[in-house]
């Protein structure tokens, strides 16, 4: 069953054409690797999916319905979450505030005054989510800016998973992590697939992409240039598709060596 289909999406900034009609389909529970050189349009494409950018042309459908004109909040409500490379955390706010930003539960203060944010519920749920991820934070009541990089990423991941997403987009989730943390992110991606949640993984770490995805889409110069089944491809083919020409054995060997 197709969850997300990107149909002929074009996007340009001024005179710079970034996306020239991208076509990608993603099934429910599928893990896709999205790879390509810097400037190939990976992040831009994903931002047209989350609604941060509006596509100039083309259609984006989610569960068979067009979401092209929706704003980021509406798309999030449908179950599209993204973990940004810079994590996009409000660093002076605490864990629960970040996880629930834009979706705070409210209650009535003293039973009459409306719209009071229900901090207690938020804290309980936030703590449960952090525990679920098997992470340890010094305290969920501290500003997230006081945490280490890995801990901050846990908060960003918890935010993406708290509201039962159907599609999770991860932009370079392993770029800044230590070895053990990388493994736990990859394990998490496998767990999400088992739960039927689709994942789009953007990464320059091709080994990670090969080890965890079902399919790899290579973006080159704003187009989906290749579509590789992970179990039937190898590093050489992937690197060749990314770079586009020539004998890539040397580069592939270098990547394999990690």
């Amino acid at each position, binding site marked *: 069953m197709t969850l997300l289909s990107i149909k002929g999406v074009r996007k340009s900034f001024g005179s710079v054409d970034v996306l020239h009609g991208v076509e990608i389909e993603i099934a429910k529970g599928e893990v896709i690797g999205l790879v390509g050189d810097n400037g190939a349009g990976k992040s831009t494409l994903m931002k047209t999916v989350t609604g941060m950018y509006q596509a100039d042309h083309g259609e984006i459908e989610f569960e068979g319905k067009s979401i092209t004109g929706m704003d*980021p*909040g509406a798309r*999030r409500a449908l179950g599209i979450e993204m973990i940004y490379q810079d994590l996009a955390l409000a*660093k002076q*706010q605490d864990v629960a505030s970040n996880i629930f*930003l*834009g979706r705070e539960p*409210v209650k009535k203060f003293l039973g009459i005054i409306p719209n009071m944010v229900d901090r207690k519920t938020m804290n309980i749920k936030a703590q449960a989510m952090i525990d679920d991820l098997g992470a340890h934070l010094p305290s969920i009541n501290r*500003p997230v800016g006081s945490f280490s990089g890995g801990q901050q990423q846990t908060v960003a991941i918890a935010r993406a998973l708290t509201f039962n997403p159907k599609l999770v987009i991860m932009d370079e989730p392993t770029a800044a992590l230590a070895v053990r943390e990388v493994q736990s992110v990859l394990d998490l991606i496998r767990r999400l697939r088992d739960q039927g949640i689709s994942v789009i993984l953007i990464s320059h770490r091709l080994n990670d992409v090969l080890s965890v995805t079902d399919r790899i889409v290579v973006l080159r110069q704003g187009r989906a240039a290749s579509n590789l089944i992970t179990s039937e491809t190898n590093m050489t083919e992937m690197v060749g598709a990314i770079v586009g020409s020539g004998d890539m054995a040397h580069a592939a060997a270098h990547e394999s060596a990690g």
Partner: protein
Amino acid sequence: MSVKENPASHPNFWKRAQVASEERLHVRLESLVVLGGLCITMTILSPYFLSVNNILNILLATSTIGVLAIAATFVIGSGGLDLSLGSVMGLSGVVGAYMAVNMGLPAVFGVIGCIGAGAIAGFVNGQLITRAFVPAFIVTLGMLGLARGLGLVISDGRVIYGLPSGLLYLGQGRPLGIPMPVIIFLTTALVTHYILAFTRFGRYTLAIGDNENSTRTAGINVERHRLILYTLSGGLAGLAGMLFMARINSGDPTAGISYELTAITAAIIGGTNLFGGRGSILGSMIGALIMGVLQNGLNLLAVQSYYQQMAIGAVLIFAVFIDQYQMRKEARV
């Protein structure tokens, strides 16, 4: 400061008190300690300080700046700046007085005129900032001149005297012995504190100031929120203008000159982060009261007013120093 706390001697107690103060009151403990210390010092130095009358005097003197500090807290907390607060306050007083005196409209139109004129000026600020993408500093600096000039044009450069009694009551009435401006100021502070500290609106305000981009990815309409904030800021400046006008019984086109800086000072002393993301109304009220108590106390002690300005300047720098010191120690922000 006369108070010397030594955090090192009982780290647990001090730390816990800090956390409790932040979580329960949304006020930095340091501001409370400074305010408490000031009050104790003044009480020892002057027998008049701790009287009901004097405390009401302090609150009355703080009411106008206090309302402006509320506006400053919202805008600065969202990572913005409103330099037009004082000018808009002056314009609002003139518009309200003009409607009530020159046009002879009922007192309620004086109130509507003040708050409406302020809100419109704020709305214009907000539109220019969110739609024309002119930086807030520039827009509100321009509005500082525009609003001041417009006030002088409307009043023809003269003070508009002789408000109707209904308006006068708002500035000089004393139900139960409490001055009306104090009642209006404290009510406004309570309501806005609730909004900033406990509602979604308040959380989004601080989130925008903290990380605009992440707030946008969370699906919050940042531009619309900013527009509301600047309109609110202008409306509050209008309320301050009304309080001032009613208290001095006239619409003075030169009212509120440089008040925006005093209001910003109060907000910063109270713990608002100048670059956004942190702040509370109660904190800013403590900041405004620190300045009010300092001025009042030095007046009682017959210290020349020049020294008061120096003292407030020193307190501002000291407050931000304490803040930075703590941040460096704990956070990686």
